[in-house]
């Protein structure tokens, strides 16, 4: 019995390691390449580990493109985008679930229906609207669409529906207004859902490609994905530079993910205690 268990364990870890290798090999290749000189790129047989590692590719990333500026732009846009999504979506979800108003059902159905329309359909008119509002090459052109995220509203409505109205009664008796109830009673109870929405929105905005590509054409305004894209346009064969840029663009989002993972665990615990 014990021997069978050991065998199972060996099998499990063998497969786990194999999957990990498949997942990580492209990243290994990226890091290895980023440490090579231009000449070593085309050396045959290929060098799995660079024979003369150098940081020259990283230097080139910073000198050829305002990479730090791009990182700053990405942070500014992503943080604003995520915050606005969380606030706007949770406020709308609060109205849909905790306030009675006419056409509430119809409006919510419109939200759901809008999720069916692929973003490509609105691409051209949205471009025209942004152009008319003279917002092209400004941060708001990429940030403002976060006001309306039907998916976020839907997710939070599902969550807020499960919160009994009794929870609000005590606050109401204490004379709290609608806004205070939303902030003090409802939001804390939705923390786990808010954390999920926060991570997915952050990722979506950080990695977004097509919409920023259309909106931000000035070098100074570009996000990290656009910076990488334009590096690719200029130095398509210098893979050491491209790989160094790719690695640099990945580090912040991985850090945010790891932090958010640990935070959301804490959050769900707190929510549970308060509930």
């Amino acid at each position, binding site marked *: 019995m014990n021997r069978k268990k050991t065998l199972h364990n060996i099998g499990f870890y063998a497969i786990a390691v194999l999957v990990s290798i498949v997942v990580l090999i492209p990243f290994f290749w990226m890091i290895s390449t980023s440490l090579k000189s231009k000449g070593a790129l085309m050396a045959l047989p290929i060098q799995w580990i660079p024979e003369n590692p150098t940081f020259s590719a990283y230097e080139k990333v910073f000198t050829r493109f305002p990479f730090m500026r791009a990182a700053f732009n990405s942070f500014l846009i992503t943080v604003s985008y995520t915050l606005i999504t969380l606030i706007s979506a949770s406020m709308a979800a609060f109205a849909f679930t905790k306030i*009675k108003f006419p056409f509430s059902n119809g*409006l919510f159905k419109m939200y759901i229906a809008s999720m069916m329309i692929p973003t490509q359909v609105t691409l*051209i008119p949205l471009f025209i*609207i942004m152009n008319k509002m003279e917002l092209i090459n400004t941060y708001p052109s990429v940030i403002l*669409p976060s006001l*309306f995220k039907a998916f976020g509203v839907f997710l939070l409505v599902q969550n807020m529906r499960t919160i009994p109205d009794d929870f609000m009664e005590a606050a109401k008796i204490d004379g709290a207004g609608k806004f205070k109830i939303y902030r003090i009673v409802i939001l804390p109870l939705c923390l786990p859902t808010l954390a999920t929405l926060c991570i997915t929105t952050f990722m979506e905005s950080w*990695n977004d490609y097509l919409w920023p590509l259309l909106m931000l054409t000035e070098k100074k305004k570009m996000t990290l994905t656009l910076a990488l894209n334009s590096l690719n346009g200029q130095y398509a064969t210098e893979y050491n530079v491209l790989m160094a840029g790719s690695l640099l663009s990945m580090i912040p989002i991985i850090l945010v993910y790891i932090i958010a993972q640990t935070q959301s665990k804490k959050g769900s615990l707190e929510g549970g205690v308060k509930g």
Partner: protein
Amino acid sequence: MMKKNRSLREAASAIPFLLPSVVGMIFFSLLPIVISVFISLTDWDGLAALSLGTLAERFIGFGNYQNILGGEEFWRVLKNTCYYIVLYIPLVLIASLGIATLLNKGKKGTAVMRILYYIPVLTSWVAASLIWKWVLSSQYGILNQLLALIGIKGPEWLTSEIWAMPAIVLASVWKDMGFFGLFLTSGLASIDKTYYEAATVDGAGRIKTFFKITLPLLTPSIFFCLVMALINAFQLFPQVMIMTEGGPNGATQVMVERIYNYGFRYFKMGYAAAFSWLLFIIIFILTSIQMKLQKGWVHYES
């Protein structure tokens, strides 16, 4: 009278909560959708200023739709997408089921594996495409080098009409399997443990338990993955744009790539808008069919 007043006040209190979201919906969803319908009925080139006048002047009815559906390109692009789907969906489902099974065992190291398998999901498509373009390089890439170790001469992935699409599928499966894998893990975790106890008592083996209990009870999660994967497949774009630009010889041209090029490179806005509505219709029909078919194979616990 008092009551009416109160419900009126109640309704009015919803306004500030709804305002940001509804303003956003009008400007970034509703209005663009309406404009998009109109543009798709014109041969507007995006250069003449847009107004009701220009749209009326350029009105050509369903001309764009007729041209697209009557031409050869649309069907070829659709065929390319189907080729992608046929390869991508089974591969990504099997890979993510495998990952979910691994993660669900709850053995030591699961927390690390969760993060490792999610790194490709966190990577932007721009970075992932660049990495894969280099991994797939026929001469200097690591994949063909690995294949050579076991005696296989790898193809010229991205410059071969036959292999370019499978290469994009490979990169997409690699990037998406962590996402679906983690989603299926939570599906697995929610399966009632008593089913397994009953199976053990009945003396059912591992494989039988998997096919008779795990898989049927996981079908709601698998169904969700299938719907998402299919919608994603039709919106395939950045990896194509960066890895092949639709080439070689149009072998990886897909819907969104066409919409982007017609709209913003060739300035055939009307044509591109019509193309995007056809994309919507295809996604809509396929999702509806899936919703209908699910009754046949998805088991919801009651």
